[in-house]
């Protein structure tokens, strides 16, 4: 454990507003902002930029994706499971970016009191995991069906007969109710999301800690390999794309996927031939649910699913076709992965004495029990549900646009969830009474102003942390589990901020060494720019980016631990990866040559010239 004296990060209240971004605060709730009233408390805490989940500045509506998770995380962690030393996560928004801090419990009596609750409640979950998780999946499927089916009523000149003759609710009630229900379902989704997450990660972390104490030199990736599932639902979408590529080859329609063609053009051409129509049927058969895969992590409205934006799966299919043409094997080597996972577990177990081996096997078994949830919840929650939810909000946006309250349905995301509710209220009021609404004059200038603010805020790079480095070791199991925030990590961030070193350090997430030009990706839409042979440098990656991994040589991220998705996917593809570097996207420019040493967790900038 590092004993370096506390290094300081900037005071949260000292962070200047970037030029031209004055007034950014209007987009966010009052409680998310810094203020003089909380100055003392906020300066004494350590806040770190949650670039893992929130790499971009937040639009006003997308604050739902901060509040939702943090209500739910804190509620389960602090009020349900009463995790003894840690309450919930507090957040602040600075210049559009999300900074978080854990609230600790320090009173030993209170910790003991909480431990009693925790032992009983967590014990119940672990003991009944498979059954509870089975029920969880049903709850999620039901919720997804419900959000999909939720009606956004159109406002007609005359209500339907059913209102007059069959006691159906009037439109104003149905519009407002529908909107509130959409928000409520979103909150329920986050409730479900965190029901198992902490316990699942905790079981994994326990196994990991045990391995590291019994086998101090064990590489993190071996621990992950022993636990990670083989037939994981999260890999299924990409597996389906590989299968579709193979089918296209076999049907002789692969030429339709020529470079640069849009999915629409490809689909149109395939519709012309019998073989093509056969392929399209195969596509239809797997689209639901597998094309509910997201292009991002579901924390932003612009993270669309493959169903919404087929360009990502189609470009991936094309990549898989190219690989087949070149005679490369595109299948995931599942048998090999399964054999390797068991071999590692067996060999490490054999190195331990009998008693330690018993504990090792027990913890490994538990980790394997919980791991499907850890890997699968993302598909259900962040991708499937979230893409449906944001699409439902788009329908409300379209309703507002139809009545002139917005220029475009997409503008709805520039309003907060409360403002959308307010706009809908005025809409149903003015529609009902027939008088002139203010909305069409009120909302469009606000939307315009916020769009410009967000564009400017995107140019700003937040510091990795602000506030005061804790003098005592950070002992918050949740921050370690979810964000890989350890004292060592914080100190390396602090020293990276003070120097202009040519190396960045992070967690060694996937072994090996690779060199190549950097491709800095800060926005999910930029992933299509990635060229073969490049090293991906991003704030964070998500499993949704799987299609670009066959192209790249290595990956570097700002945040994440060895269980982060970049790490998991890189191990799958055998690519070196260093995660949790703190500032890679700020320090590295696209085109710079890098060396990624995924064995030792070091990224070296090989040249410092501006790229041509």
């Amino acid at each position: 454990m590092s004993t370096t004296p506390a290094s300081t990060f900037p005071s949260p209240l000292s962070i200047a507003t970037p030029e031209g971004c004055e007034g950014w605060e209007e987009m966010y709730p009052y409680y998310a902002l810094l203020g003089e009233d909380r100055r003392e408390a906020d300066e004494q805490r350590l806040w770190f930029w949650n670039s893992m989940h929130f790499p971009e500045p937040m639009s006003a509506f997308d604050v739902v994706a901060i509040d939702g998770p943090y209500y739910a995380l804190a509620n389960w962690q602090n009020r349900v499971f009463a995790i003894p030393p840690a309450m919930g996560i507090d957040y602040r928004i600075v210049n559009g970016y999300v900074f978080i801090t854990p609230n600790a419990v320090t009173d030993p009596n209170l910790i003991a009191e909480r431990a009693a609750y925790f032992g009983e409640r967590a014990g119940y979950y672990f003991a009944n995991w498979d059954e509870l998780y089975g029920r969880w999946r049903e709850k999620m499927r039901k919720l997804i069906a419900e959000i999909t089916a939720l009606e956004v009523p159109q406002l007609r000149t005359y209500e339907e007969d059913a209102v007059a003759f069959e006691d159906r609710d009037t439109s104003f009630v149905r519009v407002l109710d529908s909107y509130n229900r959409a928000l409520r379902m979103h909150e329920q989704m986050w409730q479900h999301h965190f029901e198992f997450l902490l316990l699942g990660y905790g079981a994994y972390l326990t196994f990991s800690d045990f391995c590291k104490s019994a086998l101090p030199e064990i590489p993190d990736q071996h621990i992950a390999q022993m636990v990670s599932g083989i037939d994981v639902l999260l890999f299924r979408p990409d597996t389906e794309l590989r299968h579709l590529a193979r089918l296209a080859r076999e049907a002789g329609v692969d030429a339709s996927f020529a470079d640069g063609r849009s999915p629409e053009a490809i689909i149109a051409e395939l519709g012309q031939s019998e073989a093509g129509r056969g392929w399209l049927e195969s596509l239809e058969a797997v689209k639901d649910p597998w094309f509910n895969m997201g292009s991002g992590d579901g924390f932003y409205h612009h993270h669309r699913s493959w169903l919404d934006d087929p360009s990502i799966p189609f470009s991936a299919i094309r990549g898989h076709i190219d690989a087949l043409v070149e005679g490369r094997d595109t299948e995931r080597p599942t048998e090999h992965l399964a054999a390797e996972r068991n071999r590692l577990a067996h060999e490490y177990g054999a190195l331990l004495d009998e008693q330690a081996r018993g504990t090792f096997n027990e913890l490994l078994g538990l980790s394997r029990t919980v791991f499907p949830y850890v890997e699968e919840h993302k598909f259900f929650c962040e991708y499937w549900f979230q893409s449906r939810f944001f699409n439902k909000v788009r329908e409300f946006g379209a309703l507002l646009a139809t009545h002139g309250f917005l220029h475009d349905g997409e503008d709805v995301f520039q309003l907060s969830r409360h403002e959308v509710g307010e706009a809908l209220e005025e809409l149903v009021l003015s529609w009902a009474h027939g008088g002139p609404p203010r909305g069409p004059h009120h909302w469009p200038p606000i939307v315009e102003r916020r769009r410009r603010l967000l564009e400017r805020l995107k140019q700003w790079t937040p510091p990795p942390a602000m506030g005061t480095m804790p003098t005592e070791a950070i002992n918050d199991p949740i921050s370690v589990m979810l964000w890989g925030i350890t004292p060592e990590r914080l100190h390396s961030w602090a020293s990276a901020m003070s120097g202009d070193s040519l190396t960045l350090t992070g967690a060694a997430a996937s072994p090996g060494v690779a060199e190549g030009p950097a491709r800095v990706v800060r926005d999910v839409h930029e992933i299509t720019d990635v060229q073969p042979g490049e090293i991906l440098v991003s704030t964070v990656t998500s499993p949704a980016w799987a299609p670009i991994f066959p192209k790249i040589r290595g990956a570097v991220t700002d945040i994440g631990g060895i269980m982060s998705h970049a790490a998991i996917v890189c191990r799958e593809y055998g690519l070196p990866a260093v995660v949790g570097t703190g500032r890679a996207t700020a320090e590295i420019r696209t085109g710079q040559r890098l060396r990624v040493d995924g064995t030792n967790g070091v990224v070296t900038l090989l040249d410092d010239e501006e790229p041509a």
Partner: protein
Amino acid sequence: MTECARPLAELRAHDEDRFGGKSTSLGELIAGGIPVPPGFAVSTAAFEAFLATGSVGERVEDALAGIDPDDVAAVAAASAAVTLEMRRTPVPDAVAAEVGRHYAALAATSSKRQPPVAVRSSARGEDSAEATFAGQQETYLWVRGTDGVCEAIRGCWISLYSAEAISYRARMAAGGGPPAMGVAVQLMVDAEVSGVMFTCSPLTGDPSVVAINASWGLGLGVVGGEVTPDDFLISKVSHEILRRTIADKQVEYVPDPGGRGTHRVAVEEPRRTAACLDEEGLRALVQTARAVERHFGSRQDIEWAIARTGSLPENLFVLQSRPVTATARAGSEAVADRTGLDAMSLVLGTFGVKPRRD
């Protein structure tokens, strides 16, 4: 007379009393199919025969009688006197004849008439720190001819009477007569690279890794700490290189151009800063380390060399192996804290619930 020498291949652990630990462990390695340079062992009885020549033994005892281990000057004088006495005394004819016969047999297995050999002390007991103080760690490299070998054997015996050894024994032992020591004689490996390896982490005791230190030339540099070796940590499980530190290896030991003894030379660039082992070499070493560990059933500290001629894995030799006894086990306390608890208590511990032990 009693047996003076025996081929290493015919020694087993139970012979340790008569041949010392190093020779018998080499015999065990050979029996386990581990590649060890062929050779023979000289028994402790040979040393006893030497002491019985004329009145050497008595004069040695006289010189050491009642010595105060803390009287540095007296100890140094006694050591000098004994050394001089022993140097004047030839190796007994019977011993020399036996050594000559075994050396000739060894020559017959090599292509040389007078093959170079390594002559090393073979201590009784395994505690290497004790052996060092007791003067049982002498090594002569690149020795040729029966006379040369006999001289080196006597050198090993004389090393028992260094000032440190005398003072150590005087402090430790209440009388007990003369010390006993065997000697191992083996064909030299003309090492391109050599070093030591542990079948566990020397720092943490982690049994899942092999830690390898390696440098150019003969092993003296690494063993004697004169060179900062290249340092590798390899996973036994995946054979991945977990850590790799390439050092600036400024000197190496090579055979003396005169054909006898060794010679320290500067290492030229680019070899100096180049890794002295590639993946193939590391792989062969890890396999050998695991085989040695399996054979003895315990963690081993292994000295090894890779010959200039031949190719891997045939040119890789184990020069000696001894159990790792003094490994710091940083993790063991943490493991002890964890074992004996069921998985659920451990998971609760992750969330800050202190385990209760009933």
